[in-house]
């Protein structure tokens, strides 16, 4: 099963990475052998539970007690664009 440039285009939308047409070609070329290699897992037989975590940890939680917050200045300190204490983003639509 080969991944097509159309597939890559869809994934690049999901991942929000802008790719030019030539990049779409390049990525599908380099990604295909990797996916083929990943496909070797198909030969693994036997059904076991999926290991989301390697440790059997449960119920790790904290009490509802406030901790230190950042100042507005600190919160905004790394943003390229701010306005009136807000982060400024481009229009949505």
């Amino acid at each position, binding site marked *: 099963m080969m991944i097509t440039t159309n597939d890559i285009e869809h994934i690049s939308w999901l991942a929000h990475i*802008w790719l030019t047409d030539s990049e779409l070609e390049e990525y599908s070329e380099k990604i295909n052998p990797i996916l083929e290699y*990943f496909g070797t897992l198909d030969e693994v037989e036997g059904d076991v539970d999926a290991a989301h975590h390697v440790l059997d940890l449960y119920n790790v939680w904290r009490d509802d007690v406030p901790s230190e917050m950042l100042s507005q200045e600190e919160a905004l300190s790394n*943003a390229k664009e701010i306005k009136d204490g807000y982060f400024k983003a481009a229009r*949505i639509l």
Partner: protein
Amino acid sequence: MMTWQSIEETKRFIETDGAAEAVHRCAERIKQNDFNSFITLNIKDALSMAEHASGGRLCGVPIAIKDNISTRGIQTTCASKILTGYIPPYNATVIERLKREGAVIIGKTNMDEFAMGTSTETSYYGAVENPWNVGCVPGGSSGGSAAALAGGEVPLALGSDTGGSVRCPASFCGVVGLKPTYGAVSRYGLISYANSLEQIGPMATTVADAALLFNVVAGYDNRDSTSVKKQFDTTLPLDMKGMKIGVPEEYFGEGMSSIVEKVVWDAVHSFEDLGAEYKEVSMPHTKYSLAAYYIIAMSEASSNLARFDGLRYGHHAEEGACHTSFSKTRAEGFGDEVKRRILLGSYALSAGYHDKYYLKALKVRTMVKKDFEAAFKMYDMLLAPTMPYPAFKLGEKIKDPLSLYLTDVNTVPINLAGVPAVSVPCGFENKLPIGLQLIGNFFDETTILQAAHNFENSTDFHNRRPGGE
């Protein structure tokens, strides 16, 4: 010939010349070497830290920090354009623990972009040279930390290990690197590549120093829900008599250098001489580890790296509406390998492919973990080569991603299972160091560090220096 610095030597130097002078010595060496091991130097701040250092187990001792560990007030880039200029307003837990012990942060070390690589060639800030041969890679992704140690620039360094990123460069640069048990060291402040696999790991020129650094940074942290309440005894050494060692046959696979194979077997026999017993063991799911590892790592990465949209921090492309701006920011800010892994990870999680790739990889992880559990019922420790060959040439593999992935064959199973492993120098090929990997049971760092220490004491590989004969 380069002088290396151990903690003990450094402390003696500080006693006679002062902590500030130790910082100057580091700065000079870094400049002299010019291996590109650092992205950001923190000399001014380090001098002030050195002057104020008044106690602790690492009082005044300089340390290099991999640039994916958040340092308050010091630029933290993950070697990516997308985080260039980002100054964290908070410290990682490990940084707080280091400061508590008086350590002095010299700077932030170069690495593969977002720790995605085995050669430190994917850094936005350029490749790092291997001190043993400047035409070779230092290994990755913690290549800057390893090169800084091997080049005598610092006595201690922190790296991070998602699929071998501490052990590989330790092996290629002839230093010591520990990948702790998953949950032993807090990940709070470590910029995630693949959360379920990675740990911050100590790197040093001797096992004793790595053990001490591990002791400083390890321990439960209520800010990391996957951190575990464990105490570690890293008192060295230990009597090796009667220790049971397993040698997994799958770790001597196709493509391995015959010299690497030989020196690792020599190492096994040195343990025999120390009184240990060994047997070959089979870990049948090893060959599927690499694919499972990369699928899990890329899937998690595709989500972890979604936050880099240019709005709150980092590179920002101002173009069109919000979603376009995000996409262009990410296109401009991420390098080629990072984009490839995000795309592959998004694909592996996407509708229709989730079960084939992501879920299947998690099931294989269970099987790999069971291999280890079975082995540790019979053996106290496993021995294997860290890398199948010594450092390769700069530019040799970077064009072919899959061939680069395949070099991680012996390190990724350890991360999949979550067990600890340490790499120590065990020989040379063409004047390039070879690393021996000692793999331990869950939270049994003690055994592998003690064994590594004994091995170090009975050999002299760690005494050889780059540039020496």
